[in-house]
């Protein structure tokens, strides 16, 4: 049988096998959880624990991070009491259970999916969960990361395990060389546009091919982060020398000989040559253009060189109605060129695109230029912020007219009060263009950091390749 412990196995099969505690006759398997991240939103789960009079079973494998509600402007401002309460609850719940917390004032604080890898808490071969759908991000290291709900968070807190049914296996292969100005975000949006926002539902995705191998760890994190936007249970890239090099000397990663022995283990995780997948998707990397979203689902993504779709030309009435509804919300006209869409503000940040490489890509476009619209730049962690400042990137953003703030989930989800105003149009490096995601009535266009920077410079959706050409 394909995928059995004795036959050729995929990366996902190997992770599944190494975490299975017991499999029931009906196929439900109890899995061991190696890392559990909790945040301010995890309070429902801690309340369930209290109801049962229980404590966290494995505090040494549980880590708290304040990110969803943290203010990004911290000095000299008073915090909304309801938001402060969310941060206080997390501090209380973690300290009461002896769980380590990267709190608001910790120099390592940041977005959970940035901090985990940065601190070496994320390692190849681990099963990682968090009450956040973008936990798929950690798959960039050949870990199995997935988002769970509050009931499951409570279950993991109490037992360090989780019941799951084995998902199907999907491989998405992207070969070829990406053109200049094209990055992981464009690959990911191309995939979601191609297979749909539910195209990978019920599947564990492995990304493979030369264009994927060529991505930096930051790029792989962006790619795996967006797996959930195609509905996938998780997204993974096989560990390689780049993975090992990134993890060496990270604070929580093994050290010395332990690291070398671990690395040997990790390099045995990639999919065996003969292993089979339930579904294979292939994309040509050289054909990928910079993408932007025009609608209210990440599947509504198109190359910047094209136009807003016309529902009148769609034979499927349901689909046409859906497009019409999206265009009304987004205030766009059928057939309108995407490069004619004017924007009101920009946001650079979120667990998708706030790492040092993302900030460098945006700064490269903005350097020596002015933004025509206001905008916020929120680095993914306090350490990313420090690094960016050491490189002088903060000055580039500030000189362009953008606001350089502290780290957190910020305007991606608007929980901390960083919101796009009703009716405003935002070019954003985030992951979801859902109605009201960035604030009630907000209109979101998702794109790469370089594309957001280009939009800032011109005040409208723009093909960043033209701005790159101007420099050469």
């Amino acid at each position: 049988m394909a995928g059995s412990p004795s036959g050729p196995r995929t990366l996902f099969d190997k992770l599944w096998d190494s975490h299975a505690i017991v499999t029931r006759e009906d196929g439900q398997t109890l899995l061991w959880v190696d890392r559990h991240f909790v945040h301010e939103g995890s309070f429902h789960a801690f309340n369930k624990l209290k109801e049962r009079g229980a404590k966290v079973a494995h505090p040494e494998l549980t880590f708290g991070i304040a990110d969803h509600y943290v203010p990004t402007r911290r000095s000299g401002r008073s915090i909304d009491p309801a938001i402060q309460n969310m941060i206080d609850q997390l501090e209380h719940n973690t300290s009461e259970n002896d769980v380590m917390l990267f709190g608001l004032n910790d120099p390592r604080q940041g977005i959970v999916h940035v901090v985990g890898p940065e601190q070496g808490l994320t390692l190849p071969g681990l099963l990682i969960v968090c009450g956040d759908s973008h936990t798929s991000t950690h798959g960039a290291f050949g870990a199995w990361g997935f988002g769970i709900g509050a009931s499951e968070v409570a279950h993991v807190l109490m037992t360090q395990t989780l019941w799951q049914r084995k998902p199907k296996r999907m491989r998405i292969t992207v070969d070829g060389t990406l053109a200049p100005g094209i990055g992981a975000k464009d690959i990911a949006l191309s995939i979601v546009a191609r297979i749909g926002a539910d195209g990978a539902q019920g599947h564990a995705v492995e990304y493979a091919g030369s264009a994927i191998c060529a991505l930096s760890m930051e790029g792989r994190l962006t790619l795996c982060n967006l797996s959930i936007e195609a509905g996938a249970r998780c997204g993974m890239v096989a560990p390689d020398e780049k993975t090992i090099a990134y993890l060496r000397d990270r604070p929580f990663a093994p050290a010395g000989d332990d690291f070398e022995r671990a690395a040997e283990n990790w390099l045995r995780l990639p999919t065996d040559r003969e292993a089979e997948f339930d579904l294979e998707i292939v994309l040509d990397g050289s054909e990928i253009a910079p993408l932007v979203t025009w609608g209210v689902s990440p599947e509504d993504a198109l190359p910047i060189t094209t136009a807003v779709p016309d529902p009148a030309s769609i034979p499927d009435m349901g689909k046409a109605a859906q497009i019409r509804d999206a265009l009304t919300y987004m205030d766009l006209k059928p057939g309108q060129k995407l490069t004619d869409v004017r924007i009101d503000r920009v946001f650079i940040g979120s667990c998708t695109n706030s790492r040092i490489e993302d900030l460098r890509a945006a700064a490269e476009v903005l350097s020596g230029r002015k933004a025509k619209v206001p905008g916020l730049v929120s680095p993914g962690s306090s350490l990313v912020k420090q690094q960016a400042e050491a490189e002088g990137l903060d000055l580039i953003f500030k000189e362009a007219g953008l606001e350089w703030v502290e780290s957190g989930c910020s305007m991606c989800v608007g929980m901390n009060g960083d919101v796009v105003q009703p009716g405003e149009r935002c070019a954003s490096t985030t992951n979801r263009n859902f109605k009201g995601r960035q604030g009630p009535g907000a209109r979101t266009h998702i794109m790469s950091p370089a594309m957001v920077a280009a939009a800032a410079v011109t005040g409208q959706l723009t093909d960043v390749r033209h701005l790159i050409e101007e420099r050469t």
Partner: protein
Amino acid sequence: MQPFYRLTATACPLPYANIDTDQLIPARFMKRSRAEGYGGFLLHDMRFSDDGTEIADFPLNRISCRGSQIIVARRNFGAGSSREAAVYALVDYGIRCVIAPSFGDIFASNSVNNGLLPARVDETDAEELMRSVEESGAEVAVDLEKQTISAGGNTVPFAIDPVWRLKLLNGWDDIDLTLNQADAIARFTAKDSIQRPWAVPRVP
């Protein structure tokens, strides 16, 4: 957890695809305690206009849909954020079953953990059910044991993971099942600490 066996109730058609969990409950309401009840936040920005008044032609606000315990929607219901609050909003509003061609995986799992049935049907059956409910406002009968949905004289099958079906039928809570596995867990961790010593974080 309240078991789910059979339900005959008013159904509300929501003829939209990709109703994500940000729609089901906008993030700004999630600071509240569950004890306050989340039903008022369900689909808040689709149900209410900016001044807080109900949008009359939004399906859930129609007189024919008052007291609905069933929702029929298009594909990819509950996509996006893992917020279980989306399920709390549905349950607290009084919804006990959502019928759609596909569901976000995390949402579906959260639903089952709260006694809410995510019933998967063919696209054509979903469209037919929506049309039937829209025209006659008829009640819909959902039978979890037989895995059937009946409305307007027609009966169609629905799909659900067999384990989830049993869990809903019995109102089981996973934690109790897991605590019975303590010995198996102890055997696993003993073996695992030898096979994967690197899996435990180093304390810096």
